[in-house]
Structures are given as structure tokens and as C-alpha cells.
């Protein structure tokens, strides 16, 4: 029990004292049990007052401190630091919020606000009387980061971490790196091709001693937590040994009799069962074993083929994990704007691959394309459907592509059916260029969507154009391009393995979009790129850098300090019913043997002190450090006026 407490009540300029009579509060608490000194102050957080507090603690040998001021979100750390400077353990500090919960909330009732402030401060005093000195939990943190996903966000993050001297394991499920960007031709604003960007990143990764790149590799489970993640990674073989040259490759590809739709080209072309896409790295072919018939044709012309290679599982350890698993392009439903029902209706990604593959003439299904209708926001901004969000990249991408089409092929006309263009920032320049060049933009609302139909063998797109007084306007294009948005990966294995929660949009969720934009509620796991939500290339790269820095800060010192405010189990009381294990949202509770008795044990580096396990324990064997029953009850008594 503490006996010499210091209490400071802040005016906050006038933010508090305009509504709360702080002198009255001081007078009401100065005779509370244990209070040694009680003062009011204009700004508790000012340097002068902080110094005064340090001095008061030191000269009077105070053993506890309460500051009644603003929200602990703002200044808890400030005043904890004050106690530390005065050689008092920081857990002997208790914060009372009389601004957000007092003066601001009750500006219409000064007396009531003052009364409430008195109770809040009394409760804080009651709590600090019972407070104990605590030491932060220190755990070792392995200086290594695992990055899941070698798209541009992951690749960029890997390079950044390597530069900072941190060993990185970059895990890519596909056999090639670069993700979506490897599929794109010229990009705005840099005018480089996606392949150029990927090849540059790949070369840097290849030349870095700190980065281990695993392709065809999949995380299958995790046994650790922050500071010490232990991942099982399954690596699929390419069925190719040693490197071989392009000539040989061409020969093998030629003899392979199997043809399957080429996902690199979004199925607008086919590929063989042995393949190597032009813009993808490593420049090392792979045999698609699912579709390979083991006919043996390739083995006849090439002795690098080796079907005896086996899948292997390795363990990788890291202090932090950076997730950059990317997105899936939205696939329209059958019949959505004629998709899969009317010929010559394709998606924007397919169209982008198509123009990359066409040379002198723009052909689709053997027919020349002279006019194109782009239908925007397909799969995005659905007020009724699942994807309420704007996919952000697609307006710019569609306009950029339509400009590219006009540059590459002669006499093409573009018609854009939009729901309001969102080319934010510099991307607006593209919109301007496109309009000036004579592209036609029409617009409708979601309630009154446009119609794609066929009339006499011709496609017809009809819209009630709000820019022309809702007049029905029709275009008969040769090709309809559905400007599809982006959706979260359908493969949810990563979110299951790490219990990584998604937001309302089903993308991975950061803790706070502005204040903690790359951290997740799972300690030690950061997120980057489009797995977090729609982003363009630049934004993905930036978030990669940001996540890399955050992950680095977690592993850099080799040791982590965690809050000691966590749950603890009274092993004598525990009967291992397992209820707490089920209640814990962070997977922090496991069963252990204590002699021949089964009891619950808390993983100190994972427990966040949320308290979810406390009420479910039938024998009350769990205590939350610093929020014990005794402490909470004494606070309630004070608040209820019984103290």
C-alpha cells in the first residue's frame, strides 16, 4: 500500500478549468488516504511542471503519482517518463482523464463535470495506492525478417531491409517474382515497363548477400510469435536442374504437346506445360506438374529435365514478418455487362495483355478493333454488393491504356462509360490528355446502369448519359473492355495461419490508417502493398518501404521490450477446462504439464492484456497484472462514492 502520493490537476489552458473547478477538485482529494501533496497546474505537460514533478517526487520520496489531465493516449507516456526520471518505477503512475471524459463531454454542466472529475481522480488515487512496480517483459528478437510475397511491394521491402543490414527471406508462392507488375507494359508516370521495374528489383535482390529468395514456396504453418516466428515453408520443385540456354528452352517448349490457358496473359493465350514467361524472373523455366502428362517428350530433347526432384519443407525463423501478398483481379460474373455471354467483352487486364501481344494491328478473335467501349467501376463501388470500395487504380489504368492504344494503333476510337472519373493527383494529367485528344466520356449513376447487348450481330452499349441531360446515347463498339477492380486474394491461407484479421473490405487491416498504417493487431506482423487495400504501383512501393522500416525496428536490437500488463495464471487454482484458450483472440494460451496436472500457461510475448480470458474462467484463476480484482474494485468503490 502506497503512503506518499503526489496528485496534479491540470487546467489545460482553459480546456479543463473553463468547465471544471480544478481548485475544488484539489480540495476534495487532498485529504484522501495516502495523498501527500495535491497541486493544480496550468499545463501539466509543460517542461517546467514536469521538472517540478520530478523534484517533488525526489525531495518528498513520493511512491505514487496521479496526473488528472487529458486522454492517456496523448500523455500517458509523458508522465510515465516523469516518474522514471525521478527513479520511481513507471507503473506507479496512474492517469486520470478529466478532459475528454470530463470538461469536453460535459461542457453544458459545470457542476456535474466538477463532481465527475473529483470521482475520477479519487478512483485514480485508489488504484495507485495498490499499484506495484513492474519490469517490462524482455524477449529476444531474431534479427531476420520474412517477407511473404515477391511482388513489387515485397521486393522493394526486401531490398530496403537488406540495405539496413537485416537478413531477409523472401518467400514467393509462384515460381516467378514480380507479381502483377511483371504483367504490365508501359506504366504511368515513369514511362517504364512493369517488366523493366521488376527486372531491376530482381537484379538487386540477386546481388544482395542478405536476401534469400525462395520461389515456388508456400508458408504452411507458424509455430512462433513476435521476436521468434518459426515458419514451415513448403518448396515445390521446378523439375529442372542446372541452368540452360534460350535455344534449348525454345526446343523443349516446342516439343511439349500440352496446352493450357496462360494465366500470365489472363487466359487470352495458351502456354505449354513447360513454360517461362518473357518478363518474369528468375529466368528459369518450370514444369507445371499439374498439367504435365509425363509424356517424356521434353526429356528426349533436354537432359536438364529431372522428374525425380521432390517437394521439401524447411523451417525459417524471423523476428518479424512482412506480409505483401497482393490482390486478385476482379472476375466479372457471367452476364455482367455481357461478360462470357457476348463475344468481344473482355476485362482490362486481359485487354492490357492483348495490346502488348498485338503488333501492327489491334486484333481480337481475328477481327480488327477500331472502336472500344470502356465500362468503369466493374466490381467496385457496389453499394449493394461486397466491394463497396473504389479500386483506385482502374480509372487511371483504363485511361492510360486507352491513350496507349491510340498511340500504338491507327484510327482507334475510345468511348469511356464512367461513374465519375477518379484520376487523383498527377493522374489528372492523363485524363486531360485523353479528353483533349477526343476520347468521349459518358457518365451514369449506379442506380441507372448502362446496358450491353447485341443487335444484328453488333455489340451495342446504351447509357442514359447524365452529362447530356440523361439522354439515351448508344455506341456500337468492336470491343467492350470491363474496367475491373481489385479484390482480396481468394486464397486465405496466410490470414488463417497468422490469425490476421481483415477489415470491412476484407483486405488485411492496419491498426490505424494514419497513425499506425503498416502494423497489424498481431504483434510483429506488418503489411504492405495491395493485400492491405487498393493501391497503385507507387503507393505499393511506398507502403513496402514503410513496412520494411517498421519490421526492422522490431528486430534491430535483438531484444524487444513488451508491456508487462498481461494475464497471469494461478496454477494452483487452474483445473484446465480450456475455456480461456478458446476465448483468447491472440492464441496466447496453451496447455502445459505441471507435474502430472494439466494447467493453462500464458505466452508472455503474445498476450496483449486484453482480458478476454478473465470472465470465462470458472475458478477465477486468471489475474490481469495491474488490473487485479482488488484494484478494480477499489476504483469502483471510489467512483460510487464509497471510498
Amino acid at each position, binding site marked *: 500500500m502506497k503512503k506518499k502520493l503526489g496528485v496534479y490537476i491540470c487546467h489545460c489552458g482553459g480546456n479543463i478549468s473553463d468547465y471544471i473547478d480544478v481548485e475544488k477538485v484539489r480540495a476534495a482529494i487532498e485529504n484522501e488516504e495516502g495523498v501527500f501533496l495535491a497541486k493544480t497546474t496550468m499545463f501539466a505537460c509543460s517542461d517546467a511542471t514536469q521538472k517540478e514533478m520530478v523534484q517533488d517526487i525526489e525531495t518528498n520520496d513520493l511512491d505514487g503519482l496521479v496526473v488528472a489531465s487529458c486522454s492517456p493516449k496523448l500523455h500517458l507516456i509523458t508522465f510515465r517518463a516523469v516518474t522514471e526520471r525521478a527513479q520511481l518505477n513507471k507503473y506507479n503512475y496512474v492517469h486520470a482523464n478529466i478532459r475528454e471524459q470530463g470538461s469536453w463531454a460535459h461542457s453544458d454542466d459545470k457542476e456535474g463535470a466538477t463532481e465527475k472529475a473529483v470521482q475520477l481522480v479519487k478512483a485514480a488515487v485508489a488504484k495507485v495506492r495498490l499499484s506495484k512496480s513492474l519490469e517490462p517483459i524482455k524477449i529476444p528478437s531474431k534479427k531476420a525478417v520474412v517477407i511473404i510475397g515477391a511482388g513489387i511491394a515485397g521486393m522493394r521491402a526486401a531490398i530496403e531491409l537488406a540495405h539496413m543490414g537485416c537478413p531477409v527471406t523472401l518467400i514467393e508462392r509462384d515460381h516467378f517474382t514480380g507479381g502483377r507488375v511483371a504483367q504490365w507494359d508501359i506504366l504511368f508516370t515513369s514511362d517504364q515497363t512493369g517488366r523493366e521495374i521488376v527486372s531491376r528489383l530482381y537484379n538487386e535482390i540477386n546481388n544482395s548477400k542478405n536476401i534469400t529468395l525462395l520461389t515456388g514456396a508456400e508458408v504452411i504453418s507458424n509455430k512462433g510469435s513476435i521476436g521468434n516466428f518459426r515458419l514451415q515453408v513448403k518448396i515445390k520443385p521446378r523439375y529442372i536442374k542446372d541452368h540452360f540456354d534460350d535455344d534449348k528452352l525454345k526446343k523443349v517448349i516446342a516439343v511439349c504437346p500440352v496446352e493450357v490457358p496462360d494465366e500470365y496473359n489472363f487466359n487470352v493465350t495458351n502456354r505449354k506445360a513447360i513454360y517461362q514467361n518473357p518478363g518474369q524472373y528468375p529466368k528459369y523455366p518450370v514444369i507445371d506438374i499439374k498439367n504435365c502428362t509425363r509424356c517424356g517428350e521434353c526429356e528426349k530433347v533436354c537432359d536438364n529435365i529431372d522428374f525425380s526432384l521432390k517437394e521439401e519443407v524447411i523451417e525459417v525463423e524471423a523476428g518479424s514478418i512482412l506480409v505483401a501478398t497482393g490482390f486478385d483481379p476482379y472476375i466479372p460474373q457471367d452476364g455482367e455487362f455481357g461478360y462470357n455471354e457476348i463475344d468481344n467483352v473482355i476485362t482490362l487486364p486481359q485487354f492490357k495483355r492483348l495490346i502488348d501481344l498485338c503488333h501492327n494491328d489491334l486484333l481480337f478473335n481475328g477481327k480488327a478493333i477500331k472502336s472500344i467501349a470502356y465500362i468503369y467501376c466493374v466490381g467496385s463501388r457496389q453499394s449493394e454488393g461486397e466491394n463497396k470500395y473504389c479500386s483506385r487504380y482502374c480509372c487511371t489504368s483504363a485511361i492510360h491504356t486507352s491513350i496507349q492504344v491510340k498511340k500504338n494503333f491507327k484510327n482507334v476510337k475510345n468511348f469511356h462509360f464512367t461513374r465519375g472519373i477518379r484520376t487523383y493527383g498527377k493522374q489528372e494529367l492523363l485524363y486531360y490528355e485523353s479528353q483533349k485528344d477526343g476520347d468521349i466520356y459518358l457518365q451514369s449513376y449506379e442506380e441507372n446502369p448502362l446496358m450491353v447487348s447485341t443487335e444484328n450481330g453488333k455489340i451495342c452499349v*446504351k447509357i442514359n448519359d447524365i452529362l447530356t441531360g440523361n*439522354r439515351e*446515347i448508344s*455506341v456500337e463498339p468492336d470491343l467492350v473492355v470491363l474496367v475491373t477492380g481489385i479484390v482480396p486474394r481468394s486464397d486465405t491461407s496466410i490470414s488463417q495461419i497468422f490469425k490476421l484479421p481483415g477489415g470491412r473490405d476484407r483486405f488485411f487491416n492496419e491498426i490505424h490508417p494514419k497513425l499506425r498504417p503498416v502494423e497489424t493487431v498481431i504483434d510483429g506482423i506488418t503489411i504492405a502493398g495491395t493485400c492491405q487495400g487498393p493501391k497503385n504501383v507507387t503507393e505499393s512501393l511506398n507502403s513496402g518501404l514503410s513496412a520494411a522500416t517498421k519490421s526492422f525496428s522490431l528486430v534491430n536490437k535483438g531484444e524487444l521490450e513488451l508491456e508487462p500488463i498481461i494475464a497471469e495464471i494461478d496454477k494452483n487454482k487452474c483445473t484446465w477446462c480450456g475455456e480461456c484458450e478458446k476465448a483468447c483472440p491472440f492464441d496466447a494460451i496453451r496447455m502445459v504439464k505441471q507435474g502430472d496436472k494439466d494447467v493453462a500457461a500464458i505466452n508472455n510475448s503474445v498476450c496483449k492484456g486484453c482480458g478476454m480470458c478473465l470472465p470465462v474462467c470458472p475458478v477465477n484463476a486468471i489475474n490481469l497484472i495491474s488490473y487485479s480484482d482488488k484494484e478494480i474494485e477499489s476504483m469502483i468503490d471510489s467512483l460510487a462514492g464509497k471510498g
Partner: protein
Amino acid sequence: MTAINTDFGKDLSKYGAFDFNACYNCGTCTAVCTLSTEEDSFPREMQRFSVLGLEDDLKGSLKPWLCYYCGQCTTYCPQNANPGELMMSLRRWLISVYDWTGLSGLLYKSLPATTAGMILIAAVVLFYSFSVDFDLSRIMHTGHTFEIIAIVGVFSIILLPNLIRMWWFIILKPRIQVPVINYLKALWDLIVHMFTQKRALGCDDNELRWFEHFILVLGYLGLLFTTVFLNWFSSDSVFVIVMGYIVSIIVFTVTLIFVYDRIRKKDEISKYSQPSDWLFIIWLTAMGLSAFIVRLFIDTGLLENNKWLYLVHLIILAQWALIIVPFGKWTHFLYRSFAMYFHRVIS
């Protein structure tokens, strides 16, 4: 259901419009235009129709004529889509639509064609003078007769049928029902607008330009009246002679001010000049000036030895009467007044 015609824009650019495709339909232009009203909202709508190439809607629209080119819209357009110049180009295009001969369009779009026409007329005048041995009094007599015939001929063969066509596009084709009495009631508006262009006063800060314009119309009509009906060049009446001097001075000084504005390019209206604009303004100046000098030479007895001077005047006059009046910018004056008239009739 309406189809888009992207070729229309290309055609329209030959009448001077440019960059109007850049319009993103923000509506700023319509908001700043002091002449646009809720019932007659422009110029954004005209921009939109032009971009989509909705020719039929444009042909039947009076809105281009409701604009007096103050240029506010162009100043404030965030996309530099030049709505003011588009409205001007639509007026030129409409003139070519109304004109049954098709010559207006040709002359607007092709400077070589215009030049050829001008040269042809000059050649005819010179050839005729040569054929009468440059007998000044005969030439002057013919000149005067020509003026009368030209006025009657141009009006009845070209302008009247064109006005009827305009009426057809605006009222008959879209099947707008109007009681006959409206045609009579609106006549007063026709006269007022023709002489005063009073609607232009609705534009901001436009008083000076409106006044210049008003004086010019008076001067021009006065010059027409004195030369054709009072036969200024052959008159002995001091009143007629002095009046001729005054009106011709008005014509060439006001037009010189306009030329100066176009060269300076300070205001939106004078920034983008098409050949047809220059032609109009220069020929009008030249007409006033040459008439003035001819009469001065007559009064000082110098003309007999400077026959060429009258020939120059006659050539300018013939070109004016046969090209600029029926097919050129002069018709703005006529169609605009009738546009106001029809607007009154249907509203």
C-alpha cells in the same frame, strides 16, 4: 436513342473551335455566363453537344446566338476548353447550315476559296472599266446601279431563303407549335435588337463595346442610306454631303478601334481571329475610308485625274456586297437579330 458522331468535332474545328474536347463538364462556364438562364442554359450544353456531335440538336438551337462573346466562360474554364470560342464557331457553322448555297461554309473553311472569289470580283470590275474605256462618269453610274441591284438581289436570292431555312430548322423541323399572333408580337423585338443589340448589355463590363457597336451600326446604315438612296457621290446638297462625311468617318474610326483590339488581343473576344473576322473588319474600314476619300477628291476636283481611286472603292464595295454581306460575318448581324426574334416567338 442518339448515336455519337465524333467526326463532327473535326468539322467544327475548321470553323475555328479548338480544344473543346477537353471539357469535363464542370459547368463553371454556365455558372459564370451572365446571359445564361435556367431555361436557356449554355455554353456547357453546347460544348457537350459538340463533343458528342449531336448535329440535329445544334442545328435547331438558338443558344449560340444568345451568346455575345464576352469571354468570361473562357477565362474561368479550368480545362482551357475555350467555350467562348466554341460558341463563336457554332455561330459560323450555323450560318453555313442556314445558307442554301453552301458558299458560306466553303468561304469559312477555305481561305484560298475566299481569296479566289475576291480576286475574281476585282477582275470583273477592272474588265468592265476597261471595256468602257475607263469613262469615270459611266463607271460611277454603273456603280450606283450595281449597289441597288446588289442589295435587292442578295436579299431576295440569298438572305431571305436562308432566313426561311433558319425558321425551318428552329421551329418547323422540331415541330414547335406557335400561335401566329406570336410572330406579330415579336416584331418589335426584332427591330430593337437589329438596331441596338441591347442584349449584349447583359454581359458584364460591356458598355463601351456595346456603345461602339451601336454607333457602328448607325454609321453603317447611314452610309448605306446616303450612298445608295441619296446618291452621295453625285449629290449637290450640302446636307447630304456633310452627312456622308460624318457617317463614313464613323465607320472607319470605329472599325479601326476594332482592328487595334484584335491586334492587341487583350480581351477574350479579340484573342482568336479567324480570316472571316479580319476580312469583315478590314473591308468595312476600307469601305468607309475609300468612300470618304472619293468624296473628298470629288470636292477638291482631284478625282478626274485619279480615276483609280474610285475603282479601288468600287472593287471593295463589290467584294463587300457579293461575298461578305451574303456569306460572311455580316450575316451575324442579320441572323442574330432573327434569332432573338424566333426566341421571342417560341417563348
